[in-house]
């Protein structure tokens, strides 16, 4: 059963074909990874799924239902599609706690009048969100020591973690992570990998990620799709993808299978 199904998606900007006839599926409750060289169209694909770009052709099915282009990003967020960004997109003027609470925005209802009075429903709702954020997310991601700090003062690794926390507060069904470990040191990468696996196993959230760190991709992915020049080269289990000559060609520019296999294995062991 696939929770997300991309079929024959094409997107172009003027003459630049960002995505050409892209089809792949994201099986439910898996960690599915999209890999590919820079400029392959991975982030464009994310933007199509979250509703920022309208693909010219093709369809996206979410939970078996079509997801047409006229459903705007806020609606998609409410439907359970959450994401993080490649270059961190936190709100710098706010504390960690407020950033995470923002994730719960779509699940809250209080209106302007009760907000002005901070009485009755608005107050109760805020308290419920605070409790949920504290006990379900802050505790899980081990960021309780920084909850009062403004995000601008945090290290890169912690900012990425806060961004993940904010996405989790959206109560997603599909969590899209755009390069979750880029620029992290090894310890931070290991933490993040552990969180991603826990999110899938304990929370039953399907994870769709874009990542360049092959060691981590091969370790934690259940399903991999490879994108190059806007086209899907192959998809399948990590082991199959690893040995696919097309993939090796896309990464190395030739068919020297042995050297890449060596490289991938070395990275796999290192991670």
């Amino acid at each position, binding site marked *: 059963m696939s929770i997300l199904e991309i079929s024959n998606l094409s997107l172009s900007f003027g003459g630049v074909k960002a995505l050409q006839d892209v089809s792949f599926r994201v099986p439910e409750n898996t960690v599915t990874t999209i890999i590919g060289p820079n400029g392959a169209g991975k982030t464009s694909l994310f933007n199509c799924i*979250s509703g920022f770009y309208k693909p010219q052709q093709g369809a996206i099915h979410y939970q078996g239902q079509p997801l047409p282009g006229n459903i705007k990003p806020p*609606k998609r967020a409410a439907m359970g599609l959450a994401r993080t960004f490649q270059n961190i*997109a936190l709100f710098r*003027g706010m504390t960690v706690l407020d950033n995470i609470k*923002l994730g*719960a925005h*779509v699940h809250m209802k*209080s209106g*302007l009048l009760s907000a002005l009075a901070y009485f009755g429903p608005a107050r109760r709702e805020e308290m419920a969100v605070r*409790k949920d954020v504290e006990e379900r997310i802050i505790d899980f991601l081990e960021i309780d020591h920084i909850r009062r700090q403004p995000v601008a003062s945090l290290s890169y690794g912690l900012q990425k973690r806060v961004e993940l926390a904010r996405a989790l507060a959206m109560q997603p069904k599909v969590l899209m992570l755009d390069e979750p470990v880029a620029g992290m040191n090894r310890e931070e990468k290991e933490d993040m990998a552990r969180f991603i696996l826990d999110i899938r196993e304990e929370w039953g959230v399907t994870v769709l990620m874009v990542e360049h760190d092959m060691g981590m991709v091969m370790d934690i992915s259940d399903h991999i799709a490879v994108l190059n020049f806007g086209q899907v080269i192959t998809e399948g289990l990590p082991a199959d993808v690893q040995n696919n000559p097309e993939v090796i060609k896309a990464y190395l520019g030739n068919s020297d299978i042995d050297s890449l296999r060596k490289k991938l294995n070395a990275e796999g062991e290192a991670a």
Partner: protein
Amino acid sequence: MRIGDAKQSYEADEAIWTSQTQKFWLGLFLLILLVFPFVVNSYLLYLGCLVGIAVISTTGLNILTGFTGLISLGQAGFMGVGAYTVAWLSINTALPFPVTLLLAGLMAAAVGILVGLPSLRVKGLYLAIATLAASVFLHFIFAEWESVTGGMGGLSLEPAHLFGLTFQSDFRMYFIIVPLAVLMVLAARNVFRTRIGRAFIAIRDRDISAEILGINLLRYKLMSFALSSFYAGIAGGLFAYFYRVVTPESFPLSMSIFYLAAVIVGGMGNLLGGILGAAFMTLVPEALKLLTAALTPFYPNAPVFMSPMLEIIFGALIVGFLIFEPHGLAEIWHRIRRFFRLWPFRN
């Protein structure tokens, strides 16, 4: 040094004032506000009322420009809408002032929503120009729609009244203006404890990722415009009751810039900053005038020399603040607080 304030519940942790010390100073401040009109002369009372009105309007503009990141040069126009609504209603109906004030706020909010419509497409300087156009347009309506606004001559109105009580003096107006200012700042503070305030700040900091989080940009930008001009409308209504005459020249463009300066000098996106900025912008020109008067016995030429200097000194003070305290007056306050929070230790 601040110690022993561990919280047992989220409720206590989310309170606005979390320590006994804070509550003590707040109580003292409110007490001073209450005693103030009984002990000061009429000039200071007049200034107190002006600061109260300025605080309401600055807080409104702070919500829009400081917290939502939408620059507006229409604040004086929105105040004008509120003032004319109050003036027209008090001349043509017998409604008591709470009702006319509320209607003034709602009227200004409605106009604010209209003016805010371009904000979905334009930001920054372009939005400043769009709101500038709206303010010129409003000024034109005030001056030309004679059957309603009285044209260039404006409207004169009776004092505010409620239950047979007339608010004809500054002393009585103080008891409308200042409690209302306190309540409205408190209400604004409440908004920023909820999802609506967070959505405003999210739009200011990064509107694209706000959208990804499910925040409807149009809805919240317009809500911010509505709320901000509601505050301006109330301030304008109080202005009308305070001076009891409203003309198109009561709300010049320079007034919009005055409020923008108050928000920036006080500290963008900081409610305390709005209060301090409003007080600063209202009181410093007056203080400079007092200084001139104090110098006159020693230098008989002081008024001649000082009067052209006032504007320059005032401008230089604003520039100085922007250079040395870019986060505004509120930052100075925060530094003092940090000092006492750690005292007797440093850093």
